[in-house]
């Protein structure tokens, strides 16, 4: 179960707070996956108590201030959401799945979520196996709203290192064609990192979505085979 609360001493009107939290959740807590299961109790609450004195409360009408606070709340919520993924039961890796250049946001999110929830992708990540075929497979069965979002000949998939080492990006699929010169040694180096990125460029539009997931380990089974008892 995911539970959380965000508290602030800024004064924000109820309607602005509702919009802010909803927007932040869409880009943070609703973009994480440990095991693909949804709880009956998931709740994120936010309270703004106005203890910091301001001339007037933050409201939707004052777009400049509203947008600034909304941006801060969203990046803050992302930090909190990412900690949940880092604690993913039995996990050893934190993985960012980035889908770029999608025809629409919903399909970018669907693809990112499908990759993030694939048990076979997640076990490959745990085993540090550069099994890009499983990523492709997950993209292919994603339940897209618009089939035009995915054109195989425009699809690029890469692993990206996050530790500053070079080459940062290792291309696995280039314009729909597998990279036959794949540097397996470099692939192993990237997959050995505790933090890494899977980059999917759909090349069909300009929308993007990020999801955060983790690997799936033996430990996950151990923890969850004995919870209620």
């Amino acid at each position, binding site marked *: 179960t995911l539970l*959380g*609360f965000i508290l*602030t*001493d800024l004064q924000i009107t109820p309607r602005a707070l509702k919009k802010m939290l*909803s927007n932040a959740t869409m880009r943070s807590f609703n973009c994480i996956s440990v095991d693909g*299961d949804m709880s009956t109790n998931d709740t994120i*609450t936010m309270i703004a108590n*106005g203890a910091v004195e301001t001339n007037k409360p933050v409201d939707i009408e004052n777009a400049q201030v509203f947008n*600034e606070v909304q941006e801060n709340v969203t990046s803050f919520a992302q930090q909190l959401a990412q900690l*949940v993924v880092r604690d993913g039961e039995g996990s050893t890796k934190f993985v960012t799945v980035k889908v770029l250049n999608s025809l629409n946001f919903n399909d970018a999110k669907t693809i990112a979520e499908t990759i993030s929830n694939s048990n076979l992708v997640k076990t490959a990540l745990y085993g540090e196996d550069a099994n890009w075929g499983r990523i492709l497979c997950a993209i292919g069965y994603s339940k897209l709203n618009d089939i035009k979002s995915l054109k195989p000949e425009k699809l690029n998939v890469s692993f990206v290192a996050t530790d500053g080492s070079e080459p940062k990006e290792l291309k696995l699929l280039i314009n729909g064609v597998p990279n036959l010169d794949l540097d397996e040694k470099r692939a192993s180096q990237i997959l050995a990192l505790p933090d890494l990125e899977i980059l999917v460029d759909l090349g069909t539009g300009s929308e993007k979505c990020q999801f955060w997931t983790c690997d799936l380990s033996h430990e996950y089974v151990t923890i969850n085979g004995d919870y209620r008892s």
Partner: protein
Amino acid sequence: KEKIPINKYSLYVPKCGVFPKGFKVGSIASGVKKNGNLDLGIIVNTNTKTPSSASAVFTTNRFKAAPVLQSQRVLQETKGSNINSIVVNSGCANSITGEIGLKDAKSMCDIVNKQLKSDKPSTLVMSTGVIGQKLQMDKIEKGLVEIFENKKILGDDFEHWLNVAKSICTTDTFPKLVTNKFRLSSTGQEYTLTGIAKGAGMICPNMA
């Protein structure tokens, strides 16, 4: 392949923090968790100069737990105004517990409202833990009263905040606490955000 275990607690748990003005928090081991760990937490808004605003997003699972339904009801009734506390328990999710569960979730709010001398609904409730078990309300009630009566339990320093983060954990290997100060570029006003979360498994939320 053999993997070296990661000490996530030392990597991700802060040792200090900045916290928003006008909040007090407290936690206690009520006995709901069998291992005697902290399992009941509360957040109280102590600022009375301005009315508070609250909002929440909830699971879209068709089987919503009793505390989800209770908090939704409170937010609808109050339209997000004057919500001054959040009460959370871990160890029992109070989910799939029918009418009794709904009554217990409301009781948790009522106990806190009474302690805060509020005659209007002003408390939200959350629960996490095992599904399909009744809350041990005798332990919860005793714990809540003790939080308010023992002045050392309710406070606003780092340890109080960290303990609340611990009190909502279940299989988590570390409490999740994030704090940060921000400054509005237009007015220069400084404000603080503090966030606490829990979760390690059964995680793929789609809240609305």
